[in-house]
């Protein structure tokens, strides 16, 4: 592969903080003199990445994490305050809804303006005008000032101009979300075709579906720093897990169980079939949930375990009474237990495994001990777990059923 399309080394962006006239003057002076000593806050730091032609990158992160700043830096609107940036190709940027449009102009005039902003000559624009208008598909509105447009129509027009440009790198900042369903599909079809033709996409989106479908790589930016860069499936999964955990932290308050002379799980761990500790399990693989439980009266307690997704959604739970399993006594008032899960059908992601000790009658629940496991694997399935299924040919008579 030849030189990368985009190469960034430790790129960061500081914004000058100016709260008084004096600091404003100081900032201007240091800008002119070229000194770097400006009071600032950091919007982005330490981003290094390489993107080859035909690769596509999704940017994810919370609001204000620095995604847009990074896109602006690559688009050339913002000068990075540190690091090196190299872009070897033409860029088409849709940084914001209707950026580069003038509200008083008609749609048609704005096509000329937006294309001129991208550096296209008048002749080139005239040539492509028909296809742009056709792609935007907004009918007679094309000759009305765009201040009367809905936001969806503005996006249609903006995207249509970008399609006509066919830049080496297409940068879109969460603009797809505004279009209606059919337009989104149209855009995605176009992008897929564009990617297949060797185009490179930089997409910033909160739709993990779009990121997974359109991007090979993803970069998760967290509080101005790159947190994870890699395969878009892995990164989006991590990111979603992070959010699930964040949400459930709020729900789960203080549920710490106090313990004194009751049935109690003293330790809980996960291991693989070979008996070595495991925090990971692949989808379809096996996992053992093992532990030691304390019994004050030396009677075998009932064990209950459950699996919840990181956001607290219960997936499955069962207790040892169900199958008549009794933990075996391993020491005085100590019982050991082990449950083997085989052919795990949980979808990849992070899960919490909770275990509880109950009295031998299975009436009272005494404590909760948690550990977590990460299920690995690649799938585009949705939900919590995979259900066994197979695809079969459609039945011929279903045609007649529909007609009747």
């Amino acid at each position: 592969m030849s030189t990368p399309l985009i190469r960034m080394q430790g790129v960061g962006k500081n914004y000058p903080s100016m709260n008084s006239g004096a600091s404003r003057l100081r900032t201007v002076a240091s800008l002119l003199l070229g000194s770097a000593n400006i009071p600032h806050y950091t919007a982005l730091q330490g981003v290094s990445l390489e993107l080859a032609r035909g690769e596509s990158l999704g940017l994810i992160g919370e609001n204000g994490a620095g995604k847009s700043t990074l896109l602006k830096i690559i688009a050339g609107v913002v000068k990075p305050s540190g690091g090196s940036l190299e872009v070897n190709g033409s860029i088409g940027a849709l940084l914001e809804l209707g950026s580069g449009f003038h509200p008083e102009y008609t749609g048609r005039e704005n096509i000329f303006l937006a294309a001129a902003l991208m550096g296209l000559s008048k002749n080139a624009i005239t040539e492509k005008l028909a296809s742009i208008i056709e792609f935007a598909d907004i009918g007679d509105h094309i000759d009305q000032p765009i201040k009367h447009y809905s936001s969806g129509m503005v996006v249609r027009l903006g995207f249509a101009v970008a399609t006509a440009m066919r830049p080496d790198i297409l940068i879109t900042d969460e603009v797809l979300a505004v279009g209606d369903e059919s337009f989104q599909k149209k855009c995605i079809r176009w992008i897929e075709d564009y990617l297949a033709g060797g185009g490179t996409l930089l997409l910033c989106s909160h739709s993990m579906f779009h990121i997974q479908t359109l991007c090979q790589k993803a970069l998760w930016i967290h509080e101005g720093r790159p947190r994870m860069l890699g395969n878009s499936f892995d990164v989006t999964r991590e990111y979603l897990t992070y959010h699930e955990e964040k949400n459930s932290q709020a729900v789960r308050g203080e549920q710490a169980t106090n313990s004194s002379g009751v049935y109690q799980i003293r330790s809980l761990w996960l291991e693989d079939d070979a008996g070595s500790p495991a925090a990971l399990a692949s989808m379809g693989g096996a996992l053992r949930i093992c532990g030691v439980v304390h019994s004050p009266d030396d009677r075998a307690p009932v064990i209950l375990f459950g699996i919840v997704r990181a956001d607290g959604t219960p997936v499955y739970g069962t207790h040892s009474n169900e199958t008549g399993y009794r933990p075996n006594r391993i020491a005085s008032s100590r019982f050991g237990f082990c449950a083997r899960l085989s052919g795990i059908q949980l979808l990849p992601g992070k899960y919490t495994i909770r275990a509880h000790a109950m009295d031998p009658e299975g009436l009272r629940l005494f404590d909760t001990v948690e550990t977590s496991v990460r299920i690995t694997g690649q799938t585009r399935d949705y939900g919590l777990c995979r259900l066994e299924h197979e695809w079969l040919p459609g039945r011929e008579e279903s045609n007649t059923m529909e007609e009747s």
Partner: protein
Amino acid sequence: MPVRDHFVTNLWHYRSLALNFFQREISGRYVGSVSGLFWILIHPLALLGIYSVVFTTIFRVSLPELGTGSFVAFVALALWPWLAFQEGVLRGALAVQANAGLVKKVAFPNELLVHGAVCATYAVHGVGFLAALGVIALTGNVLHFEALPLVLLFLSIQLLFTLGLALGIAALQVLLKDVEHFLTPFLMIWFYATPVLYSVAMLPERLQPYMLFNPLAYSLGRIRGLLMHGGGFILADGAALLGAVLVFVLGRWFFNRLAPHFEDFL
């Protein structure tokens, strides 16, 4: 950043954008207004009317060098070029800030905004000036139309100077918002310090050398002199051209040095 390097080739690449800004500056001022293109003449004509009443009816000024020509024609010859300068600086200085939305979202050579604003102002007042010259000639004043090419050269020199100045101020305006408040009074003082309503010859002798420090005094004086008395290219004109080019280059350097930081301040 490829967009901001290689100034000249880059500007050529963006020529259709430059043209777009230029047209937008012109159309933006009359689109939606009822008076249409007529507004081009309203402001200078109103000023001319006021000066005429104040100086010929109230103060009864008589200019020795005027001869048979009217005072109104004398003022008019310098007024249009001055207005082109004054409005050009003002519009150019605010052009970047006025298009903050664009500057923040799209990568393009920001200086085109200033060029568009200044050139459009010169074009508009240039057309008004030609119309005014026609009217002045028709009302019985003697004008040396054969000097018109040289007058156009001076307007171009003045345009370069205006561009350089406007670029510098526009960059400062983005960084320091106060500039615009100083600009209007500053331009008003400059107006009275420039021989538009009077001629250099009317100044006390000890003040006359100071006019050398006012580039506008030279260009307006030459434009008026050429149209009233005719004449050719002299050596000092070459110096004026060089000076204007220097101001333009400096202003442009200053602007493009700060342009990458505009987004931080807008």
